[in-house]
């Protein structure tokens, strides 16, 4: 096994920290999610390490509770978008012809409306419940996964080893699972890391508009919004959830970089 570089260790540590918050957040939190302990934006004390938020709730506790919502929703949405986008993208690449045309034009149609607007419409119409939120984000995101999977699949499908498998008489399932997927893994992992972070920010953005995770549940994006007026008074309050988002984004990207090191080749190398 090759040596794990320092940056990857940092990334892994950050992810482990967030994973712990995701799994055990509510247990670790010193106070309840909705407990009001003092005045708005009270400064940090020995009990309330990060101080209180705009409603006088403990910032640290809300961050820990929020981990579940924010990370959970993003992870679920990213996984769902990949499980929809990947097979369809590979299938479009493999089959070509009308399958490709129909799927691709459908995706183009969805993509030509800005994601935020599509999401706003759907969430307004169907109400902003958690499952609706996750599925909406996932489906909108899967268009991008589809495009990537399709182009990767097309590139691999013309390789001679894929041709050999087709000439052997292999079906689509084998081709996707054994010939295309393993060879598309590197860029897909990178895309997953990025999609996860984007989804995270997207959820935060929706929360910011009041369409994401609804109060009183804590989520990091919503917490940035709720505490934003603190910035005007030179308070740290909104920086904590913002830092949590940034930290996780950096952590995921550090790990993705490490996973990709040595697995990717610049295009045209070894001509």
């Amino acid at each position, binding site marked *: 096994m090759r040596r794990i570089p320092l940056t990857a260790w940092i990334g892994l540590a950050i992810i482990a920290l967030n994973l712990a918050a995701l799994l055990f957040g509510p247990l670790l939190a010193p106070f309840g999610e909705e407990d009001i302990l003092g005045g708005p934006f009270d400064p940090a004390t020995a009990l309330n390490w990060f101080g209180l938020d705009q409603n006088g709730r403990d910032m640290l506790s809300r961050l820990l509770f929020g981990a579940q919502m924010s990370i959970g929703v993003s992870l679920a949405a990213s996984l769902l978008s990949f499980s929809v986008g990947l097979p369809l993208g590979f299938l479009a690449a493999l089959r070509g012809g009308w399958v490709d045309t129909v799927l691709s034009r459908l995706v183009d149609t969805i993509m030509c409306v800005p994601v935020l607007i599509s999401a706003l419409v759907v969430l307004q119409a169907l109400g902003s419940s958690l499952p609706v939120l996750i599925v909406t984000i996932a489906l909108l995101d899967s268009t991008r996964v589809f495009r990537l999977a399709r182009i990767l699949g097309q590139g691999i499908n013309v*390789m*001679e*080893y*894929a*041709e*050999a*498998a*087709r*000439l*052997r*008489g*292999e079906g689509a399932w084998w081709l996707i699972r*054994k*010939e295309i997927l*393993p*060879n598309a*893994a590197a860029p897909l992992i990178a895309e997953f890391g990025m999609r996860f972070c984007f989804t995270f920010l997207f959820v935060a953005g929706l929360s910011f508009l009041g369409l994401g995770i609804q109060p009183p549940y804590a989520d990091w994006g919503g917490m940035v919004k709720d505490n934003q007026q603190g910035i005007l008074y030179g308070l740290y309050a909104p920086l904590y959830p913002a830092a949590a988002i940034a930290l996780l984004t950096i952590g995921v990207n550090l790990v993705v970089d490490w996973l990709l090191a040595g697995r990717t080749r610049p295009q045209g190398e*070894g*001509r």
Partner: protein
Amino acid sequence: MSDILTIRGLRVEAPDGTVLVHGIDLDLKTGEVLGLIGESGAGKSTIGLAAMGWGRGGCRIAGGTVAIGAQTVTGERSAGRAKLRGARIAYVAQSAAAAFNPALTIGRQVLEGPKHHRSMGKAEARAWMLELFRALDLPDPEHFGDRYPHQVSGGQLQRAMVAMAMSCRPDILVLDEPTTALDVTTQIEVLALLRRLIQRYGTAALYITHDLAVVAQIADRIQVLRHGKPVELGPTEQVLAAPREDYTRRLVGERQASLAGEPRRHEGGAELLAVDGISAAYHKVPVLSDVSLSLRRGETLAVVGESGSGKSTLARVITGLLPPTAGSVRLDGQALPASYTARKRDLLRRIQLVYQLPDVALNPRQTVGEAIGRPLGFYFGLKGREQKQEVARLLGLIGLDPDFAGRLPGALSGGQKQRVCIARALAAKPDLVICDEVTSALDPLVAEEILRLLRRLQDELGVAYLFITHDLGVVRRLADRTAVMQRGRVVEQGPTEEIFTPPFHDYTGRLLASVPELRRDWLDQILAARATA
């Protein structure tokens, strides 16, 4: 004459510390041509680039000195080295198509050197370019420079690259396999022009190639290399006629064998494959017209021709990858559906294909065992232990240890990969194996082994080969019968011996005459013969 290029104790390392080239000493006199010969990985190109003070892909010159005339290249920093490149020492790459910028005219790219180095005025540079174009026999030299790279042929583009290298009147040319990517008939022209050019302007040259017969025509001395170390250095006549080292003897021996060749004779059984009046087209551009072939069980039919003759397209039609526009293909008298998607699994099994490039023919994420085992499971339902045993048996058949089954293709050499591809084809127990240029991407000694393996397997298994190649040496050693293709048509077809004994068909004769021979005076004779004809 004085030494124009002096290399002493050259050592080049890859970024991970691997030593690519070690302990190389070279001297090149003004006007002299030194051939660098070796198989892939011998460090030929690395030395050629190091002579310009350059390491490709992060490689660095870790030791030794390179001097051009009185100037030490290795003593210069990168700006100083850049001043030498193009001006005093210039490079000609193997693939002209990849070396030219497709968005700029050829003339502009040829004039780039003089402009950059400010070595001559605009008018002078242009006059010199036209002189070079004329010396290189390029068509319409006045306007050749106005064309874009895609508007000229491969041979012309290769010559244009030579003109580009000569544009600053360098003292030294580094020629890195300049004719390898060309067809044999084109190769002669480029070779002859190169030689004339070097003689006329007294340019010294490092001529890098893996083909001894090519270097014999142009080099004064030959340096044989292996694994980045020098093997043997001597005058061309001596290295070819009386090689001192064992490795050189093997190289020369292989080249001679490939030219002599001993014909094959299989009785052949019933007709296995019948190609009947096939025409095919890519996007309405006709590639094959009215091609008919016949192949009997257990024999080898070679299809030869230059690039663009349609021989690979023929393979695609037979395998069903490209449905023909007319004609039919029959296997054992049974008509094959035009597209492979309409063929039954057992029909697919009976025709297997081995590709030219083993690197892309094997899935880099599947182990050798998986690659060979899949057809066994897919066609015969072999699983678990049975499959493993059969894989081991097949590996034995192609001369690899059973523990290769656990390796990924990345851990294999080119020759080993091609063996695995052959084993994968054989795993299907086919009646017909189509070999599409299977030895072209391999080093001569490795290619020789693969050919021997293919012959042995045919004797043991009685499989029939359709052998597609441009290498006439391969044909003579392997094929019972031969079909010669030119521009999508079969121009001649018959037993290999007959095809290769005079009187020749017009085109066959030209192809045969174009294969370089291992004599110094071969090119002169060819040129003289052409002049009289």
